[in-house]
């Protein structure tokens, strides 16, 4: 239930930490990396004060595997990192997907490849939406664009993780992580009782032993397991979420997510003031991708321009979504460049007038 509370002026990273607290996160494991270190700094204090468990792990790999252990026990648990660290976590994420564990993983994305830079980037779109590690799996991926959404979607991430018994990625970037905005921290902290879960480990007292695994060697077992996983990923489609801004009468629709979504929104507003028929479609869930509403806009004859803070990744999904009627142009702001609305005006007008 939402109760009116005083606003807090917090960084996006802090909003994520507060969201995890509100969601009843009991265990949090992390390794320091810029630009997300405010999350472990904050949770090492407030989570432990609230009786939760924090471990600063020896590596990103260990942190992700501690997460695996805690979620196997049915606890609400989380890890967070930034791009290079998320790469290291992929092994455990694949195992958690295979073992159907409800983990929450926060990626405050930075520039890559390799060590890249600490600049904002959306370069981990593929990694987040295609599974990221080995094998055929998907992680639900949420892309907040404001500090309030960072708070709200972190809470939502825990709920989705348990609803589908699947890892959920909250994909932010350095802009979101470092900027401050007022948020309404509306939810009281509530701990979920993990004992009632039908799958979690707690010792087999009074019941049959339980096993959480991803190894399926017997004839046909792995295929059956994969079929079940794929059906689950299909079922997740009902979770599709997006924001449509001035799309009804638009000729050209900008598709952009996260921080790039809100930067694009400013550009759309400025162009609307000049009377230009442009709108914004901002996917909020990146997996499942909101392809149906995009396809519907394509049927209405709209054209599309995808704007990303990477070399062009989400544009693949946009093109797939609109492929029957339309296509999407791409405007790429490469990682290492801090995007701003002014720089978007010319490329949007260029596409609009072709």
């Amino acid at each position: 239930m939402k109760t009116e509370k005083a606003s807090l002026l917090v960084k996006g990273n802090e909003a994520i930490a507060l969201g995890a607290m509100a969601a009843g996160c009991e265990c949090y494991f992390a390794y320091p990396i810029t630009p997300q270190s405010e999350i472990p700094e904050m949770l090492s204090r407030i989570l432990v004060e609230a009786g939760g468990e924090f471990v600063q792990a020896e590596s990103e790999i260990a942190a992700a595997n501690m997460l695996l252990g805690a979620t196997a026990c049915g606890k609400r648990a989380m890890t967070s990192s930034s791009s290079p660290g998320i790469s290291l976590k992929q092994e455990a994420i694949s195992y958690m997907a295979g073992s159907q564990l409800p983990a929450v993983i926060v990626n405050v994305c930075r520039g890559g490849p390799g060590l890249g830079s600490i600049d904002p980037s959306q370069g981990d779109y593929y990694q987040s939406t295609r599974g990221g590690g080995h094998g055929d799996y998907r992680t639900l991926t949420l892309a907040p664009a404001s500090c309030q959404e960072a708070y709200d979607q972190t809470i939502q991430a825990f709920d989705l993780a348990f609803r589908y018994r699947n890892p959920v990625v909250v994909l932010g970037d350095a802009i979101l992580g470092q900027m401050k905005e007022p948020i309404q921290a509306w939810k009281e902290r509530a701990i979920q009782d993990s004992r009632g879960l039908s799958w979690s480990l707690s010792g087999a007292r009074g019941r049959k032993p339980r096993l959480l695994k991803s190894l399926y060697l017997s004839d046909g077992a792995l295929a059956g397991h994969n079929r079940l996983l794929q059906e689950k990923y299909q079922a997740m489609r009902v979770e599709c979420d997006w924001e449509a801004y001035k799309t009804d009468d638009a000729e050209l629709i900008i598709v952009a997510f996260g921080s790039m979504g809100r930067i694009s929104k400013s550009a759309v507003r400025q162009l609307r003031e000049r009377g230009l028929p442009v709108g914004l479609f901002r996917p909020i869930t990146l997996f499942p991708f909101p392809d149906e509403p995009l396809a519907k806009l394509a049927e209405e004859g709209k054209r599309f321009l995808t704007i990303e803070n990477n070399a062009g990744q989400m544009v693949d999904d946009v093109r797939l979504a609109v492929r029957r009627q339309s296509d999407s142009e791409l405007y790429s702001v490469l990682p290492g460049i801090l995007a701003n609305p002014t720089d978007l005006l010319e490329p949007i007008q260029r596409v609009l007038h072709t």
Partner: protein
Amino acid sequence: MYQDVIIAGFGGQGVMLIGNVVAFAAMEQKLRVTFMPVYGVEMRGGTANCTVVISDEEIGSPIIFSPQTSILMNQPSVEKFQSRLEDGGVQLVNASIVDADLLEQDRIRTISVPANELADELGSVKMANMVMLGAWLQATGCLPLKAVQAALGQVFGEHNARLIPLNQKGLERGAAFVASQAERPVL
């Protein structure tokens, strides 16, 4: 209502602090606000800066290339941000340490504030940032001075509470300086 500002200066001049104070005061005024710091490598040495956007509507970009206003605390900040100010924009410049010959006056409006001297008169050159912020508040009229003074208490916390009265004076001094230069707000 929409107002954006880039605040820039040397690390240690309290640039981030006044950005935070403005953001907090705006929030308390029930306005929307974003505060975007530059962080990390760029912060060590050189120019520190942050962007604050205040609006009564939902804010799009927290990053602004060409701001309406700027508070420039040192020479490198003027070199970096003066040319980016939007046409007709207003920049407040710390005249104590900025070369006056560099300052544009036609395309944009420049308000030169001898912030270091004014702060020194109050007893601490560290108040230069508050003097500049007070000047900006007077020039833009976007937030009541009293609201910003009240925000100091929240941003400083108990540990630094003893510093609040002097900082409040800094704000007043900057505002008074601009008021003495012009009959009405320049925006």
